[in-house]
């Protein structure tokens, strides 16, 4: 690597355009939101910057605190489900035959790159009352009833007089399903990276020395895969926490997450200062999660160097 002084002209040619772009079209907008978050609404569209923390205090109101808690709860369940499923999937890919591995990985990655809106829309068609899942259940109900008829049990109506579709959409369940659907690939990739890097002879040694599969998993695999687990948890949790589209399209009236409240402040309620404050709280949470990860990684590094 060269010192920039060695060739200042080339350095500036490469440094100025991206720095200027980033400053003008990213950092300035963020700074603007930060300033607005300390402002007050005066009139319909005017904002006065009064440097008060009222908007942040308002976010501590039980109504909004509850939405924050709910968002944490949804993102948390999503992360746990993704971690369990993702671990099994990552294991299956790691121990798959060498030729199949890239194909399986590609299959996990492709949905990650397809349009979020389209995937969410696809879920609506599956989950809604007259959707594919309920159509399948109705078919099962039909077969079950025919079987009962054959057995001469029709008068008892064991499966009910008619098929009752299950309400799978526009509720909290749909939101969590949607979040898992969207974020599963985020979890699989870092877990796979960690498992593939791991020296598999450690597992073999542990099994040879008499530890069972569960014990080996708990005291060998998990500690060795820990960096991947931490990365996976954070890159699943952070975007899940800030999700807008999934609760918006799949959720019911009580499934609002933080991003939906932010959107409302900017689009319909027209209370930009409050929306800006909520955005910054969401951003601080994100930074905190990422900081935890880097501190953890740094500590892990020093521990490895000491050994």
């Amino acid at each position, binding site marked *: *690597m060269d010192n920039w002084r060695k060739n200042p002209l080339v*350095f500036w040619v*490469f440094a100025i355009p991206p720095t200027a772009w980033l400053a003008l079209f990213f950092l300035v907008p963020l700074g603007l939101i930060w300033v607005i978050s300390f402002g007050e609404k005066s009139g319909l569209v005017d904002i006065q910057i009064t440097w008060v923390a009222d908007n942040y205090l308002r976010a501590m109101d039980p109504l909004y605190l509850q939405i924050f808690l709910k968002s944490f709860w949804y993102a948390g369940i999503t992360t746990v489900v993704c971690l369990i499923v993702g671990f*099994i999937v990552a294991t299956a890919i*790691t121990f798959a035959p060498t030729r199949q591995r890239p194909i399986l990985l590609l299959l996990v990655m492709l949905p990650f790159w397809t349009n979020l809106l389209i995937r969410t829309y696809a879920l609506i068609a599956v989950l809604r009352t007259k959707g594919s899942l309920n*159509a399948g259940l109705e078919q099962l109900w039909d077969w079950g009833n025919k079987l009962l008829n054959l057995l001469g049990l029709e008068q008892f109506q064991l499966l009910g007089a008619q098929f009752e579709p299950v309400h799978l959409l526009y509720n909290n369940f749909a939101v969590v399903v949607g979040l898992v659907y969207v974020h599963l690939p985020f979890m699989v990739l870092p877990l796979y990276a960690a498992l593939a890097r791991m020296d598999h002879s450690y597992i*073999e040694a542990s099994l040879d020395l008499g530890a069972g599969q569960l014990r080996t998993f708990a005291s060998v695999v998990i500690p060795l895969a820990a960096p991947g687990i931490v990365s996976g948890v954070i890159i699943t949790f952070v975007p899940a926490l800030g999700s807008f589209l999934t609760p918006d399209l799949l959720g019911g009236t009580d499934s609002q997450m933080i991003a939906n409240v*932010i959107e409302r402040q*900017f689009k319909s309620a027209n209370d930009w200062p409050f929306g*800006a404050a909520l955005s910054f709280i969401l951003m601080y949470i994100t930074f905190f999660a990422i900081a935890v990860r880097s501190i953890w990684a740094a500590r892990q590094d020093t521990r490895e160097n000491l050994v």
Partner: protein
Amino acid sequence: MKLTFKAQGPLDYGRRLWVRFTLGLCFLFLYAPIAILVIYSFNDSRRNIVWRGFTLKYYEKAWNNDSLIQAFSNSLTIAFFSTVLSVVLGMMTAVLLWRFRFPAKAPFEGAVSLPIIIPEICMGVAMMAFFARVGWPVDLPWPLNLGAITIAHISFSFPFVAMVVRARLARFNRELEEAARDLGASEWQSFRDVLLPYMKPGLVAGALLAFTLSLDDFVITFFTAGPDTVTFPVKVYSMVRFSVTPEVNAASSVLLVITLILTTTAILLQNRSRD
């Protein structure tokens, strides 16, 4: 068919039935909704549940929906300009970080990764406030009216391009460049004839990613789009809010195929450049 039964070793987790079962279930969960979406775009029924025969009429309907086509061409235009500028800025960032040591390098690196890290909604509202504040003109002729959205797309795309190109540069043998310089090439010549050809697979992969990111983005565009500058995802969103129709399925299937082709190409290119 030849069946071979091998004894299962203790490490053959991939062959265990329940592991395979979960893997299968997971792929079913990931792909079945998309497959159903595509299949029902060919279904000759408005209600979308019962199969009533093959038809292309919803594709025709989508094709004749002027506002949908307008939104689609807006999306392609934005993606094109966003890709070109993102590749240039991303390449510059990658070369800068790879080649130079300079003061404030760590903060610069952090700032460049910010657009990747922060929640989309925060970036969306920031862009919305920014363009409202600077009084960005809204009644410009096409394609200048798409400027605000394009700028927002470049801001979140070029850090991704930088990441991809930097990964490629990490394996560059600097002696090649030094040899070129020793043989009398100028700074510009050695960049053009040595470094640029080496970066090319990374640049192409980065370009495809930038294009897909721009084409797919909904949240940030939702906040920067005006009534006359609707992109394809924003249009589909308003259609979905209104009702679930096979026309939306048809339009979505087209976009799906485009992104699938672009992404697969990008991933394959990236894998090849890694070897």
